[in-house]
């Protein structure tokens, strides 16, 4: 190794060692841990640890709460991803309009929720969603809607948390969309306008193709994000009512750090990873197929 190469390694070695030891190793160890019966007895004395193969996975499949958590998370992803993509794209289109004034001000306002502390704003929303005194039911009441027991009714709790998550995160995706929209050539729009294309036709045939890759990026990030909901149900509903907001990560947390079933919890972590991975691959495959079609 040359002297210059040695010094180059001294630049990257600390970071690579830290990543290897505190990220790669634990990620890999999660897989191994999921094949053991690591629990509170193993925690006190490691000699109680046994290798159990796929028993943790087999046991999980039998647990109704695991399936409940999977189902809830799927609903969060299925409803949340389209909702957040449409909201953030609409906001980005609004901000990108040439007729809009004071753009930096609006951009700042739309983005602000994203940088707030999740736990703090979740606490705020718990009160906004209060059945009797909440601002949201008051607003709906003005429109003639009966009060909704947002966080007490198992049918309303998931949409309520969804509303909060979209409010909290749409600004982030909006900025990514804005970056893409600003690189779209004005000439294309001009040409479409001269051809007599209306607003929808321009959106459909100029904007959408131009931001295709960004759309893919945002939906991949959103899927991963909605799979990892934890603090929202932890603060707002504690998984309730009737376990309607227990997410996969919430289930993993309770299993691992409340009951100290670290083997089972690791199996949940592995399943979560595989799910995110598969869905990411499906999205990549889908977008590639559309490109070649």
């Amino acid at each position: 190794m040359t002297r210059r190469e040695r010094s180059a390694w001294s630049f990257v070695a600390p970071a690579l060692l830290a990543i290897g030891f505190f990220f790669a190793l634990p990620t890999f160890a999660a897989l191994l841990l999921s094949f053991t019966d690591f629990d509170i007895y193993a925690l006190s004395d490691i000699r109680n640890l046994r290798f159990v193969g796929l028993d943790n996975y087999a046991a999980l499949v039998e647990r109704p709460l695991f399936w409940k958590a999977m189902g809830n998370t799927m609903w969060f992803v299925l409803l949340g991803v389209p909702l957040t993509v449409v909201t953030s794209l609409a906001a980005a289109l609004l901000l990108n309009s040439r007729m809009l004034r004071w753009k930096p001000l609006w951009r700042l306002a739309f983005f602000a929720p994203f940088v707030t502390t999740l736990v703090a704003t979740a606490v705020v929303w718990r009160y906004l969603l209060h059945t009797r005194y909440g601002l949201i039911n008051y607003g709906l009441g003005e429109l003639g809607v009966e009060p909704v027991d947002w966080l007490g009714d198992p049918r309303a709790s998931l949409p309520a948390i969804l509303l909060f998550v979209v409010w909290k995160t749409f600004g982030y995706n909006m900025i990514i969309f804005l970056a893409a929209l600003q690189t779209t050539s004005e000439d294309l729009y001009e040409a479409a306008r001269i051809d007599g294309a209306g607003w929808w036709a321009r959106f459909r045939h100029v904007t959408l193709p131009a931001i295709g890759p960004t759309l893919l990026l945002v939906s991949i990030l959103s899927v991963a994000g909605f799979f990892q909901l934890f603090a929202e149900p932890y603060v707002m509903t504690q998984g309730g009512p009737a376990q309607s907001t227990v997410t996969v990560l919430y289930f993993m947390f309770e299993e691992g750090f409340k009951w100290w079933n670290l083997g089972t919890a690791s199996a949940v972590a592995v399943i979560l990873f595989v799910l995110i991975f598969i869905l990411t691959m499906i999205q990549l495959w889908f977008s590639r197929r559309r490109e070649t079609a």
Partner: protein
Amino acid sequence: MSLARRRFRPAALLLNVAAALVALLVLAPLVWMIAVSLMSTGEAAAFPPPILPDQPTLEHYRVLFFDYGVGRYLLNSAFLAAAATVLALLFTLPAGYAFAKLRFKGRERTFQALVGALVIPGQIGMLPLFLMLKYMGLVNTYAGALVPWLAGIFGIFLVRQYALSVPDEMIEAGRVDGASEWQIFRRLILPTLQPVIVTLALFVFLGSWNDFIWPLIILSDQDLYTLPVALAALSREHVQDNELMMAGSVVTTLPVLVVFLVLQRYYLSGLMAGSVKG
């Protein structure tokens, strides 16, 4: 077309009104949080919900700081966020620069592997990491809380993207003058990286301040709690104390909102750079 004519087009007016309305809706929860935190106890539990405090009071802030020791959590959060920022910069800046500008065997492959690893959520390895730290005696310590910030792949990626634009001639000039690689990095490179340093510092500071699940797991001693962990615990005990909880939320989130407002240019440009090139 003159500006004056454009201003009065109905479509433009409609668009601007729409933007103002959306902004109002988006900011309403934050404004309401501040307003309720200044109300006297029980005032917010009324119908219709009051928007402004009748007689603004700082009573709840006094209770938080003197009876619940929130000052302690505020210091904990500030210390941890500052330490995480310094550590992340120390580990990330040299690595990001080296991946952009220094030659060594396996550079491209290593970097590709790192980018690939970006899709793995940190939560997957959380349980084994907890066990590792437990055997190292780092559970319930600040060191344990800071560990994940050392392994910031996104930061390396961000710094590399920025460092690619540093001219090679600058580095060569330093080498001709007989400076070592680290001297070149310190004296010539770091000053040019200033914008991305601010961006990265901001990301890590806000990320650490807002983080919840990891400090919740690793810090069990109440004296070590960060603001979000303390607020979550407090909110489980004081479900009915609307005004007190809003004051707690303000204390938790206002510092990061202010930091963001002051440095928003760096934050948003970093976000855009990270997404477009990524």
